[in-house]
Structure formats: C-alpha cells, structure tokens
C-alpha cells in the first residue's frame, strides 16, 4: 500500500510535467491541425539550453524558463514561417506530419553535434534533496518542477482566456473559417499559436532536464508518450491534455511500482489503443466529419 501511494505521488508530479508539454502539442493541433512530431525534440533542445545556462552561467533551470521560453517562441514563429506556411493546402496534413518529423531529426542532429550523445543531467544544489511528507519521500526537483508546471499551465490558461490574442486562438480552434470572418488574421494566429506551443515545450524542457537525464535521441521516447497523452485528452483540447497527462503519469508510475518497470512503458500505448477503440476522439475531443 505504501509503495502504491508512493507511486501515485510520483505519477502526479511527473504527470504535471507531461501535462505542460502536451498542452503545447495539443494547442498546435487545435490552431493549425498539425500533429507536431517535433514537440519532443524542442523539449529536449530546451533541456540542453537550460543545461548550458546552468553549467555556463549558473542559472537555475527553473529561472532559465524566463530566457528559454521567449527564445523558443521566436524559433517557433520562424519555424512556422519557414516550414509550415509554404505548404499547399491540399497536402498540408500529410506533409506537415512529415515535415515536423524531419524538423525533429534536424534538431536531434544539431543537438548531437553540439552536445554529443552522452546523457546529460542538470545537477542543481537541490538535486538530491527530498522532503518527507507523511512518511512518503518526495524529491525536491519533482516538487519544484510540478509547482512550476502548474504555474505555467495557469499562465497559459490566463493567456488563452483573458487576452485578445488568446481569444483569437480560441476562435481559430473552434472554427477557423468563422474566425477569419471575424477579422482574425489566420496566418498570424497560426504562427503565434505554433510559437506558443513551442514555448510550452521550452518551459517543460527546463523542468524535464532537471528531472531526468537526456540526450539528443531522447525525443523519440518523449514524442510517443506525448502523442498518447494528446490523443487520450482529445486532439486540440488543452484541458483534456492536462488531465490525460496526469492520468498517464499516475498509471505508468503505479504500473512500474506494483508490476514491472519494463511493462510500465506499455501503459502509454495500451491507454492509447483503448481510447482509439472506445472513443477515437479522446476524452474531450470533438467529432469531426469531413472538412465541411
């Protein structure tokens, strides 16, 4: 029982980080109808960035978020302009998947040149600290990471709900055509929406780097998990992604503790498969029938 609860605690804390990563992924889908396979690569790129900022300048990864996030937002906007905007409408869905896949490889290649392929980890002063809460050990990095993730998710919520830009994004998510009619500049919204999605990857990258060791190839692992999370949450639904992130975090952590770590990896995929069988649109996704 003790192990089980320990597993749940771990799962919730880890799930919070997945939730943040996945919210960006699903946001990008919502705005652009693009499955961004490079999301994981951007997370890892940001983790490296945080690593450099920490080792070179001693900036704490959680503070580095303030630097990496705007930077990656810019990269996202430029990336959209360079690679996604030129696509012809007819092939956009198909090609954008492949293009983001290629982008992921490009990022991986650049990272493996810059940082080589050995695993890196960010060892802050509190890296090994743990709190004892009611007999359960909670590591400091996890707790801090979770808190920052939650804070950023709240920030994202505020941006989407309270700002003009956020409203434009939500209008685009709900109905791209009518959003255009309402005077929303769809190209700009798409570019900024993509940027915002990449920015959340940046933020979660810092936290990921703090929590887990990573190398340039880690994004393969990450992207398959992220995809499971966003499909479970419903493509395009941010609330769904957050909930799904936590659910999957808990399920896999509990599976690892109570059953076997080798099979806990599978929980992501089992969940994905079940979702597709029972409710293909995910928990909060909408049924779409044809591009009407």
């Amino acid at each position: 029982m003790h192990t089980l609860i320990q597993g749940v605690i771990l799962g919730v804390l880890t799930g919070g980080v997945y939730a943040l990563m996945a919210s960006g992924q699903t946001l990008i889908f919502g705005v652009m109808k693009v499955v961004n396979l490079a999301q994981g690569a951007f997370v890892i790129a940001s983790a490296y960035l945080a690593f450099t900022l920490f080792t070179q300048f001693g900036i704490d990864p959680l503070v580095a978020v303030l630097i990496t996030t705007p930077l990656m937002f810019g990269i996202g906007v430029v990336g959209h302009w360079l690679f996604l905007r030129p696509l012809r409408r007819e092939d956009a869905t198909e090609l954008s998947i492949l293009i983001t896949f290629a982008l992921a490889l490009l990022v991986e290649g650049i990272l493996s040149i810059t940082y080589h392929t050995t695993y890196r980890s960010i060892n802050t002063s509190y890296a090994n600290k743990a709190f004892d809460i009611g007999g359960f050990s909670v590591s400091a990095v996890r707790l801090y990471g979770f808190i920052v993730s939650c804070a950023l998710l709240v920030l994202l919520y505020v941006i989407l709900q309270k700002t003009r830009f956020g409203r434009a994004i939500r209008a685009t998510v709900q109905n791209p055509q009518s959003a255009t009619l309402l005077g929303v500049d769809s190209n700009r919204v798409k570019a900024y929406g993509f940027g915002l999605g990449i920015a959340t990857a940046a933020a979660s990258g810092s936290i990921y780097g703090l929590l887990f060791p990573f190398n340039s190839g880690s994004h393969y692992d990450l992207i398959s998990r992220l995809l499971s999370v966003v499909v479970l949450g419903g493509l395009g639904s941010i609330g769904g992604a957050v909930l799904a992130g936590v659910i999957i975090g808990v399920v896999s952590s509990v599976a690892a503790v109570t059953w076997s770590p080798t099979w806990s990896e599978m929980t992501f995929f089992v969940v994905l498969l079940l979702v597709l069988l029972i409710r293909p649109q995910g928990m909060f996704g909408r049924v779409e029938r044809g591009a009407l």
Partner: protein
Amino acid sequence: MKLSKEGASPFFTRIGLARGGVFIVALIVMPQLFPQHWIWNMMFFTVLYAAMSVSWNLIGGFAGYPSLGHAAFFGIGAYAMAAIFKSTHLLTNGWQPFFIMPLIGLGCAILALPIGLIAMRTRADVFAIVTITLLFVAQTLGYNLKSLTGGAQGAGLSRAPFRLDIFEQPFYFAAVSLLLLAMGIAYFITRTKLGMALTSIRADEDKARGVGVRTTAVKVMAFAVSVGITGMAGGIWAYYLGFIYPQFAFDPLITIAIVLMTFLGGRATVWGPVLGAAILMPAQQLLAYYVGGSQIYLIAYASIFLLIMLLLPRGILPTVLSKRRLASLAKQGNMSGISSTPAITGGSNS
C-alpha cells in the same frame, strides 16, 4: 500516356511491358557485370529498400495515409525470421528461409487488418500518430517478450551456408523478387479501379466516401499489402545480418529512409520509389563510408527531407512527367482548359 477515345483502358501497354522487361533483365544481369562483393552488398540493400519504398507508397503515396510505423512490421518480419531459426529442424538448407518468407508476409498482412481498422477509423493525422506509436509498442515488445525475441540480448539466426563467392546473391535475388512483387502490385493498382479509389481517398476522403467509394475496405487492404511486403523485407534483412536487436529491427530511421525515397522519386507512381532508393541508398552508404566521421549526417538527411517536401513535394518523376504531359497537351492544342493552378499528378501514370 496514350488514351484512346474508345474502349477500355489497356492493362498492359507495349511501352510498359518493354520497360518492365528491360528492368527485370537489368536486375538479373547486374550482378554478373559487377562481380565485387561490396557492390552486391550495396545492390542488395538498395533493392531491399526499393521494395519497401514501393510498398510504403501503396498506402502512403497512393492513399495519402502517411504511415510512420512501417519499421514496426519490418521488425516483426525480422523477428519472425529469427523465430523460424529457433526451430532449426524445419530448416534443412539455406534456401528454405526464402520460401517461408511469403508466410511471414501473410502474417504481417493479417496482423495489419485490425490495426488498420482501428487506426484508419479517423483521419490521416491520427493514423500517423497510431503508426508511430505502434513502432514504439513493437520495440517495447521486442525488448520485453524475452522468450520470443531474446530481449535486449538480441536474437541470432544461423549463418547462411552459401558459398563465399556467391554469398550475397541469394539475398539479392530474394530482394529482387520482393521488389518485382511490390512493383507488380503498384502497377496493378494504377491500372485498376483500386488505384482510382486510393487516389480519390488521397484527394478527398469524405467526398470519396460520399460518392460510394468503399474507402475503409480499400485503404485497409492497401495497408495490409504494404506492411506484408515490408515484413518480408525485414525477414530477408535479418537473415542477411544473422543477428538482430530490437533497437535496430524497430528503427524509426528505416521508416524515414523509405518515406524519403518515396517522396524523392515521386509518390503515387510505380517507378518513383525505385528511383528514390537508387539515388539515396548508395549515396547514404558510400557517404557514411567515405565521408562519415561527422555528425552532420543526420542534419543532411533532415535537410534533404525538408527541401524535398518544400520545393518538390511531388518528387522527381511526377514533376518531370507533368511538364512533359502539359507540353504534349499544348502541342495537341488542348491547353484551353488548363488553369493556372499547378497540376497534381495522380496515380494514372505508370
């Protein structure tokens, strides 16, 4: 492309037959012209990847469902082959594994049916997600089903007992057979209603369904055939290498390579993927061998990919063909109907 005004579209054209014949003869004669082992080795991998690329094209090109999980079936085929070697009493000579190959292909195709039915219930993007996830599921299973796969320790096949001087040839000809099978299917598709159905799915699936095209049946069928061939390629590969590990058998880079080959040569054509493989595979192998030594490899790969997608999204062959076609139409004085929008060539060229 000759279209007669009357009668049915021909199944074989004279020029098509000639082309196919020349190609087959070339494939058979080539090893005799180049007796070096290293060339055979390269030709083997080129033909093997060409076969996979042609097969990917069936679902990814013709139907427009970009599968990112073909490497899963490649790996399944490889491990199926390894499993066959476990019951060595079934194998009395080195040729037998090749004859078991069709069973592996059939197995992969049957396995693909439920997966296709689930993955293609929704849209192409969800299909991409499911297939890429499938790849990681398969890899995880490769690691964890230890009794079946040997897990991280890998699985060994017995070494092929072929004579040193012709060692690569059985593998090469197995790959050639696979390529011809795949191209035959692709050709068949371009010549039948099946091809039109797949093309209509790629162009506008909802509309296709709306005009009564049996979209589900057609795309699941294409997917099954496609991964069946890929699985067989995995089997040949495993036998050639003699030893396989999950991370190599289920390698995302395999998928990327075959997708890139297809896009380079031209998707939804019979010859495009072959052309793509013939350019990329030797280039890749020789580059790694002569240039190698630098991490630039992955970046170059990704850059070429991006450039093709952005500048030549239709690939080499369709681009050239459509230029020719428009030129010949102009000669016939048929340009009146041509709008300024660029053409998207479909599956009707062969």
